[in-house]
Every structure is written in structure tokens, then in C-alpha cells.
């Protein structure tokens, strides 16, 4: 189905009864060249780029629920390329470039809004660290501007600059950073893949992975077995369970991350803002809701909801930074299951020792912005059996060898520290 101005007008006059589904609701065939397990952002973009970049169309995306019902529809939609370490920098830089052409490529309005991201700092030490990060971003070819306190005040006059404990010293401004409509990203990729012949199979849970003599044969699902020459595991928070079907344990612990949204307000916050002390970040959606969040709840969890301590902490941090939001009513809060790795960086690799099995996981709490480049790189890996240039650092064996750990936060490569 296509959109046009004329169509919107005529549908408006006809009571919006003529809109059709955006993609085919496919039934599983007996066999495919490739199967992607997981219909989230990464699974759908992988399928799309397999079809578009590599001409592979005899493929299926197998999703246990409905497309986009996982983290891709639960995140706070921040898109940025402000990473610091080699391995991450070039990957997220590539992703942001794909974002910038995504709407044209998919012919779908994903509401990508480069409204600018401002990461605030609150001490001399933090200023130095952010200046260094900004230089790394510029070296990578992306944009970063170090704002002093007055520079921040011009853009964000409503912050509490003189907070006794955490005065604002300035901010690192990333003008090309921003947000996008998360559901639309899933839908746009789904339509693009489906139009190219990819089968999107919903309500179909993978329950087993068939391997014979070290070679993948296909998958078992709640709707019967499906054979395939290659299988990609792209299931975010559920990576541990699905890898176990292939007899593997992963360097992943699943944690819950919460988010919050207020009632709709008139436009007040034009940028994406993050507080440098006490994790808190916020933006305003086009519907007017203030969308905000903070840290993980910090214990392993598969509940798509969090507990009260982190809610309280996030609200307190928000009030510390911008007391003006205190009267806004919180409408909803929810949680998503995050695939946390020890070093906080992702994995896009072959599953060593099992021919035809690939894995894309470990997106921690930041995999929405990665959706285009992850799909691009995973498709490249599955089609050519070689890692894509921008994702070649995301190796699974880096934890065992210690070579190429990508510890962006500098906390050490250990669970529960990111």
C-alpha cells in the first residue's frame, strides 16, 4: 500500500475505509534459503537489506508475537552517532547516514527528526571527557559542538542552572542527533521487505533449531518445522533462550529498562536532553507527550515492567534538572527486555562451530539507532559470510580473547556495570 496526498484526501472524504494492510500476512512455507528469527527492528531491517542489497528474496522473518511488539516499539527513539571508541564510532556513523536517507529509501514517513541532542555536563572533569568525545565524533566525520553554560542557556533556558549540587557547566551538542517514530521504522522496513518478496510470519514462535553434523537445517516453530540453509538469530532480550536451542550460552544478561510518557503538552522541549549526573534523558513527542527515562532497574529480569525505586529515581533526576515539568502528569510507564553484554557493545557474528547459524544481539539499551546499520551488516554477513567493514569489531570471541573489547563507558568488561 502506498500513501499520497490525494489518497489521504479521498480517504478522509470516504471515512478512511479504503486503507489496506501494509504488508502480506504470510503463511510459512516448508523451506526458505534463509530464516530470520525475530521481527523487531533488527530482524526486519536484516530481511529488507538481504532483499535489497543482496537480491535474496526467498527468506522469512519468523516472529513469535506481532511485528514490532518488542523493544522496537518500546524505546524512547533517540537516534545519534556520538560514540567514542573505534568499532562503535564507524558503525553508528554509518547508521546515522542510513537514517538520513531512510524515508526516501523506504518511501515511508518514519518521522526522523534531527532536532539536536544535548548531553549536559556538571563538572570540569566531565567537560574534559565530553570535549574528548566531541573530538572523536568530529574525527569520525560526524558533528559535535561543545557549548558553554551560556550556550546551553540560550537553547534550554528552562533548566535549573544553579542547582546547588549539580550546577550546569555546559553541554555537548550533536545537531544531527534526534528522534524517529519507532513503530513506523518497523512498519517501513516490514513493508519494504514484504514488497520485495520476503515472508513476514507472525504468531510463530521458534521452539528449536535443527542442526545436523554442525550444519543448520532449519527451525522448529509453534506452526511446524521450517527448513532453511541459513538461520539468523535476531531476538534482542530473548537471545539467551534462542541460543540455548542451538546449545550455546551467550555473554548476555537480560535486564529491564523503563520509560515514561506524560500527557500531551504544548511544545516546550525542542531537543533531546540528557542529564550528566543521575541518569535522566527527555524529549517531547510530536503528540506533545514528554518521553523520558533513565537507568536500568539493575537486576536480571524478563518482566516488561520495572519496579518503583527506579521510577522514583528517574522522576527525582528530572525534577532536579528541569523543575518546570513537575506538574505534568505521567500517563504511562513500561519496560523492555534489554540484551546486556559485559562491555556494553553488540555482537554481529557467525555462531562459531555451527555452519549457517548467525547472531545479531547485545544491543543493550541503545539498539534503536542501530536498526539500519545492524540490518545492513547482518544481511552482509549472512549473504557473503564475511563481516561488513563497519561491524567487524562486533565479534563474539572478543570476550574470551580479550582482544577488541569495546568498553565505551570505561567501566570494565563485566556484567552489571553498564
Amino acid at each position, binding site marked *: 500500500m502506498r500513501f499520497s496526498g490525494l489518497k489521504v484526501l479521498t480517504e478522509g472524504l470516504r471515512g478512511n475505509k479504503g486503507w489496506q494492510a501494509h504488508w502480506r500476512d504470510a503463511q510459512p512455507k516448508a523451506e526458505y534459503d534463509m530464516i530470520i528469527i525475530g521481527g523487531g527492528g533488527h530482524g526486519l531491517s536484516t530481511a529488507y537489506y538481504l532483499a535489497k542489497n543482496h537480491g535474496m528474496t526467498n527468506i522469512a522473518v519468523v516472529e513469535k508475537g506481532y511485528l514490532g511488539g518488542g523493544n522496537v516499539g518500546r524505546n524512547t527513539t533517540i537516534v545519534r552517532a556520538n560514540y567514542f571508541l573505534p568499532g562503535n564510532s564507524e558503525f553508528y556513523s554509518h547508521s546515522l547516514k542510513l537514517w538520513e536517507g531512510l524515508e526516501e529509501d523506504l518511501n515511508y514517513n518514519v518521522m526522523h527528526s534531527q532536532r539536536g541532542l544535548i548531553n549536559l555536563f556538571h563538572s570540569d572533569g566531565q567537560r574534559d571527557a565530553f570535549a574528548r568525545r566531541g573530538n572523536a565524533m568530529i574525527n569520525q566525520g560526524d558533528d559535535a559542538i561543545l557549548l558553554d553554560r551560556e550556550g546551553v542557556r540560550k537553547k534550554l533556558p528552562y533548566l535549573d542552572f544553579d542547582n546547588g549540587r549539580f550546577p550546569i557547566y555546559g553541554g555537548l551538542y550533536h545537531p544531527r542527533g534526534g528522534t524517529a517514530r519507532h513503530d513506523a521504522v518497523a512498519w517501513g522496513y516490514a513493508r519494504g521487505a514484504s514488497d520485495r518478496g520476503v515472508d513476514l510470519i507472525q504468531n510463530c514462535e521458534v521452539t528449536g533449531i535443527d542442526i545436523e553434523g554442525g550444519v543448520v537445517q532449519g527451525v522448529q516453530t509453534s506452526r511446524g518445522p521450517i527448513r532453511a540453509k541459513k538461520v539468523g538469530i535476531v531476538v534482542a532480550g530473548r537471545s539467551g533462550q534462542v541460543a540455548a536451542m542451538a546449545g550455546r550460552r551467550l555473554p548476555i544478561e537480560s535486564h529491564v529498562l523503563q520509560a515514561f510518557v506524560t500527557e500531551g503538552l504544548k511544545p516546550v522541549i525542542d531537543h533531546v536532553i540528557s542529564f550528566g549526573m543521575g541518569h535522566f534523558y527527555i524529549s517531547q513527542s510530536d503528540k506533545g507527550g514528554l518521553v523520558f527515562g533513565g537507568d536500568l532497574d539493575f537486576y*536480571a529480569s524478563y*518482566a516488561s515492567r520495572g519496579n518503583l*525505586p527506579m521510577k522514583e529515581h528517574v522522576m527525582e533526576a528530572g525534577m532536579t534538572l528541569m523543575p518546570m515539568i513537575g506538574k505534568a502528569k505521567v500517563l504511562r510507564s513500561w519496560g523492555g527486555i534489554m540484551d546486556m553484554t559485559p562491555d556494553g557493545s553488540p555482537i554481529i557474528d557467525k555462531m562459531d562451530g555451527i555452519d549457517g547459524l548467525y547472531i545479531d544481539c547485545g544491543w543493550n539499551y541503545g539498539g534503536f539507532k542501530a536498526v539500519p546499520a545492524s540490518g545492513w551488516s547482518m544481511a552482509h554477513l549472512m549473504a557473503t559470510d564475511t563481516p561488513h567493514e563497519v561491524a567487524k569489531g562486533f565479534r563474539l570471541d572478543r*570476550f*574470551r580473547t580479550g582482544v577488541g573489547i569495546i568498553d565505551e563507558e570505561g567501566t570494565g568488561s563485566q556484567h552489571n556495570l553498564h
Partner: protein
Amino acid sequence: MRITCPLCGERDRREFYYVGDAVALNRPDPDAGDVVWDDYVHNRDNPAGVTRDLWYHESGCASWIVVTRNTITHEVLETALASDVKEATS
């Protein structure tokens, strides 16, 4: 979530620091090799359901506690002093 410290009784989760999977109770031999150590330090069963992890009663009696709980419902099923668990299994 409330956690029962074997020494202090039932307390708010905020009093505890989460240290992760209770694998630390089965620390491998120093010479066990990189595969075993990688498995111990990094790889996890990561179960959706009953799990055992270590919590530190930081704002309480400072004991290490093995908490058996459900990662889907957040229900705490059992708690025991890590030292007792270690003794019972060694």
C-alpha cells in the same frame, strides 16, 4: 521487590546491591584455561524463570546473599547467606 535478608529480615530492594548471577560461588581453578574462564566471567544461562543471583546487603548488615527468584514475575522464592550456600556445596 522486597528481599528477605537471613539476618535482618524483609527489606526494601533499595538496601541491596545486585552483583549478578550466583556463578561466583563456582569460581574455576586459576589454571582452568581461557574457555572455562570466559564461560565463568561472561557467559550466562540467563533464564526466563527461576534464577539464582547474588545480592549484597549494602545498606544493612553487609552480608552476601544468594537470592532465588523468578525473573518473569519478580517473585523472591528463597534467600540464604552466601557463606552457608558455599559451605553446603563444597
